[in-house]
């Protein structure tokens, strides 16, 4: 009986995976329901994680110091922790100020969101943000930071949304090389570096060139920094260069992001 049920589920999930409309429609309802339960749980469980994060960032480095001397060292540790806290607050202040600079220009166009999680599988490069359908988010909305492009919204639920970063292998961004008449497609590789494609050997490009979004892909607004060229393989056979690009954002270190509402 269990084996028959399992095989049935395998068949159904296979049809869901292939995108068969009847199965996908029903499955989406179940998934949306589960997402709406998981959203608040992520936020609630994210709170102790913030505390752990604080300990991870600030306290662990001080453990050995604290062991050496009890009272005085403890006091120094506390002061250092406070200093570190001030430093963190300053850093956060800087980040929020830079976000505010962008959002103040067109207040209705931007939504600031917090990163509350990331993909549980390292096969995909996705982050989870704390804004969802209730905040007006929709699929394909671009996500940026003051440093540059982060990715696009791929799944929206009531409380939270999933963002595919530009580092994901399924991501493509139409970019221009700043200050040059060169255009290409920036693709994710699932690793730290990105790959700039379709730059012909006649095009002008050098290591250190900055890439900005062209706005022609219909998703990302024009002129958002996307990355910097770090390697060009000019000896590759064929008509295109093999170019590696480092994104401006470290997707593992994102805390706040900006959702661009209107393009």
């Amino acid at each position, binding site marked *: 009986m269990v084996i028959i049920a399992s095989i049935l589920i395998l068949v159904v999930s296979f049809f869901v995976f292939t995108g068969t409309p009847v199965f996908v429609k029903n499955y989406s309802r179940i998934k949306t329901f589960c997402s709406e339960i998981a959203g608040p749980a992520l936020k609630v469980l994210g709170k102790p994680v913030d505390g752990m994060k604080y300990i991870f960032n600030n306290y662990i480095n001080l453990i050995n110091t604290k062991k050496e001397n009890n009272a005085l060292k403890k006091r120094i540790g506390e002061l250092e922790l406070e200093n570190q806290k001030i430093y963190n607050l300053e850093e956060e202040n800087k980040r929020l100020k830079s976000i505010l600079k962008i959002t103040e220009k067109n207040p209705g166009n931007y939504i600031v969101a917090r990163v509350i999680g990331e993909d549980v599988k390292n096969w995909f490069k996705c982050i989870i943000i704390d804004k969802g359908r209730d905040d007006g988010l929709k699929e394909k909305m671009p996500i940026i930071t003051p440093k540059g492009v982060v990715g696009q919204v791929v*799944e929206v639920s009531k409380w939270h949304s999933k963002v595919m970063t530009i580092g994901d292998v399924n991501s493509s961004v139409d970019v221009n090389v700043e200050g040059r008449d060169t255009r290409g497609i920036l693709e994710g590789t699932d690793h730290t570096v990105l790959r700039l494609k379709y730059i012909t050997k006649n095009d002008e490009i050098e290591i250190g060139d900055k890439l900005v979004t062209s706005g022609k892909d219909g998703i990302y607004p024009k002129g958002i920094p996307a990355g910097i060229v770090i390697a060009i393989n000019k000896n590759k056979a064929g008509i295109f260069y093999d170019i590696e690009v480092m994104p401006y954002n470290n997707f593992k270190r994102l805390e706040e992001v900006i959702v661009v509402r209107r393009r």
Partner: protein
Amino acid sequence: MKFYTCILLGIIFSIFESSLLSFIPAEFLKPDVTIPFIIYTTFFHTPQAGLVTSIVMGIIQEVLSTSPNGSMIFSKVLIFLLALFFKNKLYIDSKYSFSNICAGAVVCESLIYILLSWLAKGETKHIENVLFFMFPNAIFTGFIAIFIFSFVRFLNMKFFNKD
């Protein structure tokens, strides 16, 4: 321990993994925390419990990931069927044998995902990445499984009065 406690633990661990590991800058530190719970319920509970656990774990992973719809349920249910097949052939006598089985299940899961992508869509866009992380994920899941097994056994003895 009732199997729904295992499910609850699996959900909590997955959500913690999603939010906690987001600030640890290490790609390799991403165990599949749902696998140990699927293996545990399949080996130590009824087949029905194993099936329910694998479905719930599949859904929760899809909710916390951008994996294509249906892919995680498919791979988790197939892992359950494989575990069910090996239930009377393999004997879990310690946390280490449990860890080895979990590591093996992660390798199987990666291969199942590649096979599923290839069969269903004729493309395996993530193949390099899946293969790249297959063994690190297996090793790390195996490592985590030791603690999960000990933790579940501890809960069994402490609260459920059962060895």
